[in-house]
């Protein structure tokens, strides 16, 4: 029941907003829809927490600790983003950047995007997972080009083509997986269900599964934004409306990583001992951390800066999942959570900062703390948090991952640390001039949406100091699944 609510509300809201997306109360419908989805996802989480993994809808849905935690996170961030988008998009609309049909489209696609991600998380079918990942891409492609500027269209085209190809390769992987499963199950739709596949993963053909993993890695890795498949990401994040950047970075990358990790577990089951897939993931992860952190130094656009930071953090999570083991996997799960919360909060403040200065060029953004203390401090604290300073949550997760890496792959640790250090220096040196200093002439006051930022920051702080028991139980259960 809760499960149907989780999926149904966003779908209904998408239809409703397709009609009424430009009305005065459209943002409120958007907020209400996302909030209702969040409440439903909490109910679903309670159910799973008490009764363990559940299968519903005649084998169509499967919810366990891993997917339900991401479901709650997705619903939560979409709700806060909807709150943020109310003021943000109203500003864009009144400044003539978006038209009437643009607003309808924006609201409707926002909800459809959330629906697609939730479906990807809740489905039991590897094929449907692929379909919903593609749907999530398609829903956001035209949102990236919402402003119709030449660079926005270029970014959206890049996003469309690169992610289209990437995800097509993931489909190839899915076909190969089905091919291997068919040998065990025979013909029929049984062969693509997680619940069945995990049961028999030891009997799947290792050669086929290794080949399938390469395609999954390249395919879903493109969506995670791993270097060298990351080219679409900074463009799409910088050119689209900021609420979309926030959900792309905070949620879509997570869901793609979820798909990749699920596939990895199956492949590991088939290939047996020797963490081959893990080393591939660690290599991609380390490369992403290194390249992204050095790219941070060269950025001039505020949203591009944080897009690269997202690549870096997805690299960290991928590295940790590749590392495997209890501590690293726990750290990776926590990292996905805290990165998502922190990064979306940063995008909220960065969006407001660029609205105040009518530009995304970091050179022209100055004196944020004097101009609007909430936005300024929000950005400052957000950057401190994302750079891994205690007492925020990212510190905890990075520390866990680092500890695990020291123990099993000490020769990788220097690269890892170098990446984090460079990223810290780059982010800090770019953000300091923006938040401090006098208010420049080009700054205009703004009614900003403070609530989402405050909520996210508070959660990050809590997660850095103290991990609630239910959350750690949840993560432990998820770690068991990913073994």
């Amino acid at each position, binding site marked *: 029941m809760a499960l149907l609510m989780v999926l149904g509300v966003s779908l209904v809201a998408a239809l409703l907003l397709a009609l009424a997306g430009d009305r005065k109360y459209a943002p409120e419908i958007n907020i209400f829809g996302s909030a209702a989805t969040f409440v439903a996802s909490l109910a679903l989480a309670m159910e799973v927490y008490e009764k363990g993994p559940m299968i519903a809808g005649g084998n169509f849905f499967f919810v366990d600790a891993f997917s339900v935690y991401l479901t709650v996170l997705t619903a939560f961030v979409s709700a806060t983003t909807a709150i943020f988008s109310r003021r943000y998009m109203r500003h864009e609309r009144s400044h003539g950047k978006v038209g009437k049909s643009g607003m309808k489209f924006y609201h409707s696609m926002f909800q459809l995007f959330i629906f697609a991600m939730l479906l990807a998380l809740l489905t039991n079918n590897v094929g449907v997972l692929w379909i919903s990942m593609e749907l999530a891409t398609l829903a956001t492609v035209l949102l990236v080009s919402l402003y119709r500027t030449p660079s926005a269209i270029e970014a959206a*085209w890049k996003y469309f083509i690169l992610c289209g190809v990437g995800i097509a390769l993931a489909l190839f992987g899915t076909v190969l997986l089905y091919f291997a499963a068919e040998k065990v199950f025979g013909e029929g739709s049984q062969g693509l269900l997680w619940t069945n596949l995990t049961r028999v993963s030891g009997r799947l053909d290792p050669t086929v599964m290794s080949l399938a993993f390469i395609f999954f890695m390249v395919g879903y890795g493109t969506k995670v934004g791993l270097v060298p498949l990351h080219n679409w990401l900074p463009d799409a994040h910088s050119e689209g409306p900021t609420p979309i950047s926030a959900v792309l970075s905070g949620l879509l990358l997570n869901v793609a990583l979820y798909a990749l990790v699920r596939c990895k577990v199956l492949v590991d089951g088939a290939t047996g001992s020797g963490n081959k897939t893990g080393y591939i993931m660690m290599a991609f992860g380390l490369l992403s951390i290194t390249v992204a952190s050095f790219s941070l130094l060269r950025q001039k656009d505020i949203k591009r800066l944080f897009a690269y930071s997202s690549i870096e953090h997805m690299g960290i999570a991928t590295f940790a999942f590749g590392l495997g083991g209890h501590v690293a996997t726990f750290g990776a799960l926590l990292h996905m959570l805290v990165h998502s919360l922190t990064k979306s909060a940063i995008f909220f403040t960065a969006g407001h900062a660029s609205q105040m200065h009518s530009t995304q060029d970091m050179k022209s953004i100055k004196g944020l703390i004097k101009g609007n203390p909430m936005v300024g401090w929000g950005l400052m604290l957000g950057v401190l948090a994302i750079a891994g300073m205690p007492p925020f949550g990212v510190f905890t997760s990075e520390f866990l991952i680092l500890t695990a890496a020291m123990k099993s792959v000490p020769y990788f640790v220097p690269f890892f640390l170098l990446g984090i250090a460079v990223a810290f220096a780059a982010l800090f040196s770019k953000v300091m001039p923006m938040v401090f200093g006098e208010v420049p002439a080009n700054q205009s006051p703004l009614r900003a949406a403070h609530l989402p930022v405050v909520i996210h920051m508070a959660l990050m702080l809590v997660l850095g100091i103290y991990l609630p028991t239910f959350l750690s139980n949840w993560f432990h259960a998820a770690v068991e699944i990913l073994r």
Partner: protein
Amino acid sequence: MGISLAAQIYSVLAALILLTSFGLLVQRRIYGLLHIFAWQGLFLSVSTAVVGYSAGLHHLYISAILTLTLKVFVLPYILYTLIHKLKIHKEVEDLVNIPTTMLIGIALVIFSYYLTSPIRELSTFVTRSTLAVALATVMLGLLMMITRKKAVTQIVGFLSLENGLFFVATSATYGMPLVVELGVALDILIAAFIFGIFFFHISTTFDSLDLKEMEKLKEED
């Protein structure tokens, strides 16, 4: 029809699909591309039906019909109308180095055979030697997307890549489960509408569908 005859027909169709892929790679006229693409869809659809017939699986007929409508009629028709509306039907794309492209294409085919050789032994199915062809079609689609610089031709490359994926689904397995196949078809249809919208946006913003214009978003040094 005996199994061996079906296998032979299937192999011929596989060869034709590969041939059309090479055709797409070097065809310079836009209408010519659409024709070749429609033929590729037709071969794909017939091959799916042949597998369905020889294996006695009726759900493959549905997927064959789906391919026929989507890949032979709907998508070429959408592209045709778009090209007409945007008045680009007379454009000829200048391709540099056709021989090199062809050679790379051949290398990709060999690579596909090499990559799938451990798998082919496993399959006891009538269509086993065609997995390599399917992978080659995917790779040639990718190559086409890399070498072409026009929005329309990139999309045709993308769709032919997708054809390759459908071919994998029938040649490696007896087609994907129906729910998956329907979903994939739906996604492709949505994608078709999206690139249709894109063509208009690109041509109104950049005054042409040439992707050479779109090189602003780069890292500055």
